[in-house]
């Protein structure tokens, strides 16, 4: 989509923008939380006047809980003597996630590939408006270019913000993003042609960088599946793994779930909740038989799913390169090294 109109908002004016948006949407921003014993950035409701801090990298948790709540009620039912009535959950309000990094925004598009027929997920993509925020600095765990994204990527966003020379260039990416920008037109100045040129040049330089990397998806697709599967690397990678769910739960593109019924006093609901292929019971049959009973099989499945099975099916990795799994892994299992060893 071409830019109809881009705005230019001074860095110190960002609160004004947030306050205006907060009138029409339920706005969420990453906030520095001191709820637990340590401080970290986490998504939270914006209240007029809250600080909007720009920090390096991504919040602790990805935005997937907005698309894929933990847990999500699929429907409610009542257990009566002779009948079981089903009720679908009610609609939710429009939300706006403000300050979503390009990697996290891109995860919405990637998850939509397997979820294309999932009405719950699709509904959430309609309910959540995404205001992206380009990255000016990278963390030592970032690898979005390798994963097919860009620090200035706009995939998955409705509006994209880029901080250049102490001003945000605010671009409309989707039609609904454009409509929001139109309502702001009389409150903020329009970006000049030279601003746009600067923005485009910066974006093009990242694009060039990405293209200089020999397409890893293509390289993986050319590899024989069973040869990758049988590589000895999986034993080495998995040795230190403690088989916890940190990587899968913090990952924006890990989308596996389990379904269960919860009941109390004759009322019940069928919920789906995050599950992790790292857990032994993930694949265990009712008979006790387990196709991935060993730790290295589960570790292998996580990486093979993201870096081989998924790209074979959808021509893209199920990974946006946000680096959370690397940062948070207690034993430093690094997906970049795994990818390198697979290539």
């Amino acid at each position, binding site marked *: 989509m071409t830019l109809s109109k881009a705005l230019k908002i001074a860095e110190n004016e960002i609160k004004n923008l947030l306050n205006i948006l907060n009138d029409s949407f339920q706005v969420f921003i990453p906030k*520095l939380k001191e*709820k*637990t*014993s*340590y*401080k*970290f*950035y986490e998504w939270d409701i914006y209240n007029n006047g809250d600080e909007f*801090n*720009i*920090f*390096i*990298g991504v919040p*602790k*948790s990805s935005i997937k809980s907005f698309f894929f709540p*933990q*847990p999500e009620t699929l429907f409610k039912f009542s257990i009566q003597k002779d009948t079981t009535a089903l009720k679908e959950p009610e609609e939710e309000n429009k939300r706006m996630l403000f300050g979503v990094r390009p990697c996290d925004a891109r995860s919405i598009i990637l998850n939509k590939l397997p979820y294309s027929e999932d009405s719950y997920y699709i509904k959430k993509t309609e309910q959540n408006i995404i205001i992206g925020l380009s990255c000016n*600095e990278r*963390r*030592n*765990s970032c690898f979005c270019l390798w994963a097919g994204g860009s620090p200035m990527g706009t995939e998955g966003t409705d509006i994209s913000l880029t901080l250049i020379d102490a001003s945000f260039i605010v671009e409309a990416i989707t039609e609904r993003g454009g409509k929001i920008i139109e309502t702001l037109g009389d409150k903020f100045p329009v970006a000049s042609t030279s601003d746009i040129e600067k923005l485009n040049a910066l974006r093009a330089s990242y694009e060039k960088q990405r293209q200089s990397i020999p397409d890893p998806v293509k390289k993986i697709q050319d590899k024989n599946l069973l040869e990758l599967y049988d590589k000895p690397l999986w034993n080495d990678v998995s*040795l*230190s793994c*403690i*088989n*916890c*769910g*940190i990587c*899968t*739960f*913090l990952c924006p593109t890990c989308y596996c779930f*389990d379904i*269960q019924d*919860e009941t109390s006093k004759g009322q019940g609901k069928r*919920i789906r*909740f995050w599950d*992790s292929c790292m*857990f*032994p*019971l993930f694949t265990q049959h009712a008979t006790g038989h387990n196709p991935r009973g060993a730790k290295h099989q589960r570790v292998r499945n996580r990486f093979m799913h993201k870096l081989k099975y998924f790209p074979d099916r959808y021509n893209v990795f199920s990974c946006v390169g946000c680096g959370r799994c*690397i*940062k*948070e*892994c*207690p*034993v*430093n299992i*690094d997906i*970049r*090294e795994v990818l390198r060893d697979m290539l």
Partner: protein
Amino acid sequence: MENNSLNNNILSELKAKVLKLFQDGIISGFLGFASASLPMSIRPFLAKNEKDIDKLVWNSFCTINLANYLPEIIKQNKDKKIGAIATGCWSRNIVVQIQEGQLKRDDVYILGVSSRGMINSKNISDRFPGKEILHVKEEDHIVTIEGRGFSEQIKRWDVTRDNCKTCAHPDPVIYDDLIGNLAGKRSINNKYSQIDVIEEMEPDKKWEWFLKEIDKCIRCYACRNACPLCYCNTCFVDDSKPQWLGKSIKHTETAIFHILRAYHCAGRCTDCGACESVCPMGIKMRLFTKKLEKDVFNLFGVEAGLDINEPLPLTTYKIDDPEDFILKLEKE
């Protein structure tokens, strides 16, 4: 790593001893640590031959309890012993594993090392919220933290883990060989001071504190999985026949998980702090187990894993076991 003579001395002695163990054909692998791709991180590592020895590292971020890996690795390498480096708490966990039949003493060659206390990397990153730490240089008593546009020196002891600060047993309790010298028992004024603070709270404040801690739990079970005591084939949180616990992220479910996990470790926990170190959300769940450690000590006079011949307090019945809690109930 200049001026880091203490850790460097440990590492060079470690490497020399491991080399000898391989050369003498005593071990088929040595469990230690290798360097990581990010600062303040570490990789548990099994050196399988002499060539691998160069990959071994030793620093203050070795917070993973290696005893956790031993039973599984030994199962897969039956022919010879597996060597492992062990500080005070890790060696005590090996003792508990032996007492509980998870491990045989003869299957493991323990290279003991007295612990200087490990650093809590969250204590460091907490001082630089929103910034990116790119380099961490460790000296004997100073840690230098560097990122784009900042460089700061921190006293090592200021960011040392809570469990290490109140640890009375830095020395390994069982070992086949030693690296460096034993430090002797540390005299701690009150090793339960962190618990006393909580115990003094009013019940509702206490509950508030507890809920605040567990509120961020994402139920990844890293705390459980990093713990050498948690080896049940199927944990009660995962069990589906019957299902004890719901799967939602709710205070009731999360609270039951953390409370039961802690109780399951009573009389067995060595306060190694691995659970807290691996928690991605910064939950101080070590305090839950520490409280039970205190109770066990006060009731039975025992600390876990100090003496291989000492019976486990909660699985051994003695005729004169204190049963004050029952008496108290009767009085009420």
